């Protein structure tokens, strides 16, 4: 458990160092994600790596544990709303409406694009 969590933190740390070092406008944990993914794929090809957190589903279980409670992690930032009550009293209705419209548009645009492209692909593979 500790070893698995250390591996996750290590990936994040390397990601942060990489991003800060090269001044990339990408969040460090996203690089950490890619790094862990590469490690998991590398394990399938080199049995040497399949030990410690990468063997016996160690890092898999630690990750599942974290992701099972993903909702919890948003509460501290969300409670920050108490600092913004005066601003929300002034512009709150406009902000909420704008965010609601934007989220609906985003959901529809994304789902429609995904379906259209996957249908086009299916049609292309039917008639070679």
């Amino acid at each position, binding site marked *: 458990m500790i070893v698995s969590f250390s591996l996750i933190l290590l990936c994040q740390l390397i990601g942060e160092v990489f991003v800060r070092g090269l001044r990339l406008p990408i969040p460090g944990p996203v690089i950490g994600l890619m790094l862990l993914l590469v490690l998991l794929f590398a394990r399938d090809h080199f049995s040497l790596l399949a030990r410690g957190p990468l063997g016996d589903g160690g890092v898999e279980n630690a990750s*599942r544990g974290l*992701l099972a409670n993903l909702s919890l992690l948003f*509460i501290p930032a969300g409670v920050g709303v108490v600092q913004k009550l005066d601003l929300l009293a002034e512009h709150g209705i406009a902000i909420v409406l704008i965010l609601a419209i934007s989220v609906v548009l*985003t959901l529809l645009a994304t789902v429609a694009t995904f*379906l259209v492209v996957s249908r086009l692909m299916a049609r292309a593979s039917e008639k070679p």
Partner: protein
Amino acid sequence: MSENPFALWVYLSQSPLLWLTMTLVVYAGADAVSLATERHPLANPVLHSIWIVGLFLMLTGTSYPTYFAGAQFVHFLLGPATVALAVPLYENRKVVLAAILPMLVALVVGSIVAIVSVVVLAEAAGLPRTIVLSLAPKSVTAGVAMGIAESLGADPSLTAVSVILTGIMGVIIVTPLMNRAGITDFRARGFAAGLAAHGIGTARAFQVDAVAGVFSGIAMSLNALVTALLVPLAITLLLR
């Protein structure tokens, strides 16, 4: 200490222990209610935990920084949780690779719609420029969005609020919206939820369907990347 309960309160209210415990206990309660209502969107545990904790802070006159000194231990885990998304991605690699093209196109389209719609609407509503900038990265996960806001000279705490609001509204809307639109492809539904409503959408998607959860997680992590690149560009094109 027992002679003066107020002294005990003063001590506890300044220690991280109380606020960390409260965050976990309130969430556990809200999550139990959500489970009891079969994960009804309106019983969203994030939504209810936030107002309960917020109300308590206001009633006790506790400042947000004091609360955050305890709650930061939970907040910190957002980073490791992002890294942990590699695992469902790896375990579902076959499904993911088969849908790589629709995902990438939907990612670009969705990300642009998310940013442009909010900036254009906020400008049209005549909101102050700082608010417009703070709302722009609202579809990506809190930690990343706050970083983007900082680099734009906007208000990161307002960004955090708009990120959470977007996430909560997204998960309340997504299931009825997709059902009404007759969309049964859980890959597409999950992908849209993660793109529009980041981690809160992903948490919800995992509750609805495992495949939806995986696609939601992918959308969330890819969108963090794309939005970080697109927001500065969109701001330059739309506002200057």
